[in-house]
C-alpha cells in the first residue's frame, strides 16, 4: 500500500506517495528525479548510491524510505551551494580530472565530502577508510586521492 511520506532532501521538503519499504534510492531517482545517486548493486556493496544522512555518508539503495523521514538528506546536487558554487571537492575533481566513465563519482564525492568534514587534512589511511565502501572499476583512484588532497589544501574549507 502506498503511503504519503515527507522527506527532507537538499534543504527542501518533499511529499511523495510510495510504498514505505521502497529503498530511498528509488525515491530520489524516480520520484524526485535526482541523478546524483546511482544504482550500482542495491546491496550496500559498491557505494554508487551514497547520500549524506544527517551529515554522514551512507548507501541509499537498501534503506526503506520510511526510515529516513526524520533525517536531513543531502545528495550530490545538494553539495552545490545556492548561488551555484561548487563544493571545494567538486572543484578539485574537475581540476584533477578525476574521472573516466564517472559512474562512481557520486559515491566518491559524497564520501569524500563527509571525510573532509571530519578531517580537514586526511592522509592515505583516512581516505582508504572513509572511501572503502565505494568501488571504481575504471581505476581512477589515484586521481581521486589527489583531488581529496587538493580540496583539503584549498582555503575554502
Amino acid at each position, binding site marked *: 500500500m502506498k503511503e504519503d511520506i515527507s522527506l527532507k532532501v537538499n534543504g527542501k521538503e518533499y511529499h511523495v506517495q510510495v510504498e514505505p519499504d521502497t529503498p530511498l534510492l528509488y525515491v530520489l531517482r524516480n520520484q524526485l528525479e535526482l541523478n546524483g545517486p546511482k544504482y550500482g548493486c542495491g546491496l550496500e556493496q559498491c557505494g554508487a548510491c551514497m547520500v549524506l544522512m544527517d551529515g554522514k555518508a551512507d548507501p541509499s539503495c537498501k534503506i526503506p524510505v520510511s526510515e529516513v523521514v526524520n533525517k536531513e538528506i543531502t545528495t550530490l546536487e545538494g553539495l552545490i551551494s545556492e548561488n551555484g558554487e561548487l563544493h571545494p571537492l567538486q572543484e578539485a575533481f574537475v581540476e584533477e580530472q578525476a574521472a573516466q566513465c564517472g559512474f562512481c563519482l557520486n559515491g566518491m564525492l559524497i564520501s569524500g565530502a563527509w571525510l573532509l568534514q571530519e578531517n580537514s587534512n586526511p592522509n592515505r589511511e583516512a581516505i582508504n577508510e572513509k572511501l572503502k565502501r565505494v568501488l571504481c572499476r575504471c*581505476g581512477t583512484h589515484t586521481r581521486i586521492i589527489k583531488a581529496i588532497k587538493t580540496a583539503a589544501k584549498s582555503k575554502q574549507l
Partner: protein
Amino acid sequence: MKTTRRNFIKNTSYVAIGFSLVPNLAWISVNEQSSQGVTQQSRITDWLQILDDGRVRVFSGKMELGQGIRIAIAQVAAEELNMNVDFIEVKLAETSTTPNEGYTAGSQSVARSAMSVRKAAAAAAAILIARTAEKYEIKAENLYLKDGMVLSKDGDFRASFFNILDGVQIEEVVPENIQTKSKEDYEVVGTPVARKDIGEMVRGLPMYVQDLRFPGMLYARVVRAAAYDAKLTEFNKENAEKLDVKIIKVKDFIGVISEDEYQAEKAKIFLERDCKWDTETELPVEEFSAEYLKNLSKETENVVNKGNVAFKNNSISAKYFKPYVMHAAVGPSCAIAIFKEEKLEIWSHTQGVYPLRKTLADLLNLNEENIKITGVPGSGCYGHNAADDVAAEAAILAVENPEKYIKLQWTRADEHAWEPYGSAMVMEMEGSLGTNGKIENWKYNVWSDTHSTRPGGDKQNLLPSSFYNGTTAKRPKGYFGGAYRNSEPYYKIPNQKIDAHYFKGPLRVSALRSLGAYSNILAIENFMDRLADKAGEDPVAFRLKHLEDQRAKDVLKKVKEMTLGVELLESEGLGFAFSRYKNSASYFAVAAKVSVENAKVSVKEMWGAIDSGEIINPDGLKNQTEGGMIQSASWTLQEAVKFDQTHVSSTNWESYPIFRFADIPFVHVEVIDRPDEDALGAGEAAQGPSAAAILNAVYRATGKQVAFLPVNKNVSV
C-alpha cells in the same frame, strides 16, 4: 543511397543526446545510410556541420566509454578549423545521424575516428577559404580562419562560416589526400585540454542512459533462468501477480514491467524464486583446471613458425593459467526502448549502434530502417559486456508491450552472473639461450575460448535470443584471433614456434579489454625474467639486448629511470615488463613494487611509460593508462569468476571482489610524445605488462614464481 538534397543549416542549439524530457520523436530515416560503413566517399557534412551561431558540430560514430574521446575529437577539429575548442560540439553514435564506424573497441577510437574528423575538418577549412576567395575576390593566401570566422590578413574582411556558406552545409566529399595543418603549428592538439563532461559529472547532471526519463516511462526487470541452457518447466506467477506489475512471457523469456521500479524488482525476485527450470548441462566444477581446458580444445592454428626450434636439454619451461575475469561495470547495464507505429527506438550504451541494429532486426524480424538506436554513455564497460543484451531485452519488452517507453535496468546479479566474461586461458612456454647469452629457441602454446561474440548480425550472440525463441542456447563460435593477440614476442629471437588452440569453455565469453593479449603478454614477460635470470642478467638490460626498435627501448629506459631511488624492504620486490600492444600499437613499459606478507601480495606502487605516437590529449592518455594499470592489478591479484554445477556463483561484489581503495597501488605515468608519428591505440596497452610486472615483482620479493592466477589464491610463502 544518398540523396542530393541540400543540407541546410538550421540547428541553433545543441541537443544533448535525448535528454530533453519530451524527446523529439520525428523519424530522421529519410536519408539513412544504413550500415554501409564510412567509405572514402563520405561527405564533409557527414562529419561536421556549421551551426548558425558560429559553432561547429562534429559527428562521430564512436561512443564515449570514459576514455575521453569527446574531447580528443573536439581538439582535432578545433585545431584544423583554428577554433576555440569550446565552440566545438561532439555528437556521438546514433544510427540516424552519425557515421557507421562499427565498434568503439580495440583502442581504435582516437587513432581512427579522430583521424577521419581531422581530414574532414581540414577539407572544410580549405573549402571555406576557397569559397571566400571566389565569392569576395580575395586571394586565398591572404585569408585565414579564426573562431568561426574567415578573416583577411590585412584586417579588411571578416565573415562568419555561416555567411560564407549561405546557410548550406558543405556537401563535398572528403578527399582522400588532404593537407592537414602542420604539426609545428598545433595549439590545441597535444595539450591537456580538460574534459567538459567531468564538470557535468560532479554536478550530478543527467548524462548516462540510466538517467534518461521519458513521459509515462515504465520500469522493467527480466527474470533470469537457472542456467545458460535452462528450460522453463513451471511458470509459477501467483506471488508476482499480486504486485502492481505486468508480466510478459514469451516462451522461456520472462520480463516484468511496472510504473514503480521497486514493484518490478520484487516481482523479479518472486518469479526467480517460484519458477522451476530444467538444466541440461552440468558445469565442470571439480574438473575445472588448466588440463581440463587443454583437453577441451579441438582446433589448432599455427601463429608463428620461424627458424627451427630445437631444444637440447638446456631449456626452461613454465605453465600459466588465467581464470575467467569479468568486465564488472560499476553501473549494471541498462537500456530504454519504445515500439510505436511499427518503429523501434532504443537508447543504449552499446559499443556499436549499427551492428546492434542489424542483430535486433534479425531477432525481432524487423527491417533495419525501422530501428533507430541512439548511443548514450553508460558506466565504463572495458569491452563487450551486457550492453547489447540489455538493449535486446528492452527491445523485446517494447515490442511485446508497445506504445510505452520501457526502461530495463539489469541488477547487480544479472550483470555479474550473465555478462560475457574474458575467457580462461592456459599458456605454456619453453625457451633456451644460445652460447651468446641471447634467446635462441622459443616455443609457446596458448589455449583459449573466443574473444569476441559481439552481435555482428547474428541473434545467437544476444543473451535473450534462445529464451525468446524457445530454442536451446547455441553459443556462437565467435572471433578466435583475439586468442593469439600479442602471442608473438616483440624481441629478436631466431627460432620460434607459436600455436594457438581453441576450445569452447563452460562460460559465456566475449571481448574484455586487450582480449588474449593480457594472458599472452603476462606469460611472455614473466618468461623473459626467467630467461634473464638464467642468463644471469638484469631483466631490463636483458630485454634491451633483444629489442631493435628504439621506441621500445625508450619506454623501458624511461621506466627504469622513474624507479631509480625506489627503496625496498625485505618483504618487497620490484618487477618490470614491456610490450607493444598488438605489436603495432602503443609501446608500454611498467614497473610494479609489491609487498608479500602472510601469503598475501599487495601492489604498493606502479610506474608506467607510454608511447602512443602523436598525442592528442596527454592527460586523457595518462588517465586511461593509470586506470588500465590499476584494473590489471586487480584482475591479476584477486579476480576469478566462480561457478557451481548449475551456473555462475559470483553474483555480487562479495563473491567477486575487485580492488577497493586500500588495495590500489599509487600509479605514476609518463608519456613520450612523438608528434611526427601516427596516433596509436592506447586504451589496452597497460593490461598485459602490468600483470607481468606484478608477477616478476612477486618473484623478486619471495624467490618463488607464481604463474597461476589470481596471484593471491596461488601464492605460498
